């Protein structure tokens, strides 16, 4: 009988769940805890069934205190465990900001490498799910400006699986940002899967006219925009950054040198957002290849709006294409008029 190679469809949420399962099975030092990650399986069900299948010792609910969650994870990791903790929503990671910034990020450095903290902090982040206030923040810029942290965010189910496994195996502390509105995004892929190493950006779509630089929730949106642009005769390349910090810009600079034009897109407010870093460094490194300034598209510089207005806040295909249109396709463009 001939072998059939099964393929199957998975959501990003299911891929993350599978990654946690496989990590728990592979390494007895891994454990998962946080608020409601036990019997409930997390408010997004990413930890569904872990307590049932691995026992309370491996996946459990902790007291409701984010600073304490990260602080205890630091202590556990210092003693050789690999804790994977969850912050229930983006804005609820702020109480842990001091632990993340002053301890988690710096411990290796403070101790000249003697103390290694392989902690993964999972944070469902970003908007688009109609969440009330404090449930839709994109906080990546706070973390990417903090040396010592790795900040990664998957854009596809396969990457979600692979990058979470890598993050758990990694000896650096990892802020693992999960684009919550993509939890239900589907992909046909056989798990377990290993994609490119997480520190490498990947070209999700090749194109020659301009580069869309994206990550997390915007990967799918950018691909959609590129499709739409193709209809209008513009061939856009889409680069998915994946690991935001420390950042390896080889892929993205190579792309921009080729296309000569770029737009960085994220959900976060543009001002002081991660896109500023990307735009600045791409410009530093590709200046003479650029036909137009690197433009940035994102949320407005306002607090994340209520559900009924989020469609006007979040960048979508139209806002991206408008930016692409502004990339000075005619030659006699001069700014400041």
């Amino acid at each position, binding site marked *: 009988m001939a072998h059939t190679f099964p393929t199957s469809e998975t959501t990003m949420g299911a891929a993350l769940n599978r990654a946690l399962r496989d990590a728990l099975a592979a390494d007895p030092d891994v454990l998962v805890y946080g608020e409601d990650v036990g*019997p409930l399986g997390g408010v997004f069900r990413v930890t569904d069934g872990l307590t049932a299948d691995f026992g309370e010792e491996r996946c459990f609910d902790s007291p409701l205190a984010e600073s*304490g969650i990260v602080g205890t994870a630091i202590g556990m990791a210092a003693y050789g465990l690999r804790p994977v903790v969850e912050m229930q929503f983006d804005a609820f990671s702020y109480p842990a900001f001091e632990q993340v910034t002053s301890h988690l990020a710096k411990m290796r450095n403070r101790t000249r490498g003697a103390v290694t903290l392989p902690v993964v902090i999972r944070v469902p982040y970003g908007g688009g799910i*109609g969440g*009330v206030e*404090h449930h839709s923040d994109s906080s990546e810029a706070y973390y990417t400006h903090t040396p010592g942290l790795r900040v990664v965010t998957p854009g596809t189910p396969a990457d979600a699986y692979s990058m979470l496994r890598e993050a758990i195996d990694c000896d650096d502390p990892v802020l693992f940002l999960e684009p919550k509105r993509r939890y239900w995004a589907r992909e046909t892929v056989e798990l377990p899967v290993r994609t490119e190493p997480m520190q490498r950006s990947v070209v999700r779509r090749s194109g020659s006219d301009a580069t869309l630089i994206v990550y997390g929730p915007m990967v799918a949106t950018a691909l959609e925009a590129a499709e739409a642009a193709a209809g209008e005769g513009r061939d856009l390349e889409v680069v998915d950054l994946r690991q935001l910090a420390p950042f390896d810009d080889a892929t993205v600079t190579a792309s921009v040198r080729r296309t000569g034009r770029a737009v960085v897109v994220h959900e976060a407010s543009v001002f002081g957002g991660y896109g500023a870093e990307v735009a600045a460094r791409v410009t530093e490194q590709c200046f003479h290849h650029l036909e137009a300034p690197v433009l940035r598209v994102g949320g407005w*510089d306002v607090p994340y709006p209520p559900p009924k207005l989020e469609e006007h806040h979040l960048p979508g295909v139209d806002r991206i294409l408008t930016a692409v249109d502004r990339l000075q396709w005619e030659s006699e463009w001069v700014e400041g008029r």
Partner: protein
Amino acid sequence: MRLVDRHGVRREHSSFTVPDPAMLAELHRAMVIGRRFNQQAGTLARQGRLAVYPSSTGQEAAQVGGVLALGERDWLFPSYRDSVAMLTHGVDPVETLTLFRGDWHCGYDPHRYRCAPQCTPLATNASHAVGLTYAARHKGHDVAALVLMGDGATSEGDTHEAYNFAAVWNTPVVFLVQNNHWAISVPLHRQSVAPTLAHKAVGYGMRGYHVDGNDAAAVHSVVAHALTEAREGGGPAIVEALTYRVDPHTNADAPQRYRDDGEVEYWVERDPLIRMETLLRNEQIVDDGLLEVYERDAERIATVVRDRMAGEDRLDPASLFTDVYAEVPPVLERQRNELAEELREV
């Protein structure tokens, strides 16, 4: 501490007395309205007219008992689960739901109702209450505050800091902890192993009270007492009201994953409304006629909510930019124009 048992019978207590009949009737009325409001909001959530709704069915006595102890100039600091408290405090029912409807964050003017915005980041508004009452005293005003928080929220560092600031500054704040046994799916014993949450008061040099949270008379009596003491310089207090969330955490919750129906039944048998109604009937404080009036009042509010929710408000996208700063800065002015441009194009 209990003043009315679950069969609606008065219990003697050495230091607290049952509120007078008028207040008992008022407590009941507010609970009837609250119960109906929770139901109505639940329906709206199921219909997709609310983005989310955290019901407080089962907790009416704690909310109503606490709020009706507040004075004229006192402030309420509610969490997301405290619609019934807010309603009782006088906040417009539709404005109470603005947050959950997704129309805006805070749907009302906090100054108008002396009611802080519903707080979602747990425990973070407790210190606001301390600061507000401090400021009022600084200005020579007699203003106390009631902070509503859950059992889960007591684990947060912000709770500790607020308790301590209140105690050290001796501000008139009562922290009413609605211990409904669950923080979403996390049971109390994973949150605290203290004998009671009221015991936490000891570590701040505060008074702590542990009360049957399904006994509106008891909650009212204790909170009123604590507020009076606090006003007179006796310092803040923690009141733990033991109660139960009968409904799911929100309409999006799946309680069958973490709790037994039996537990819910146990608490349904201890329903705060039935208890109070029995007392009021037995003692002839209210008759059928008045009870019907309460039901009608409740129904009327439910209808108002339903009707005013029926229409779809047109939200002006430009309002995204107006109240970020006292004046719209140039950078937001430009973005407002960009958005207007986007909207013209589609």
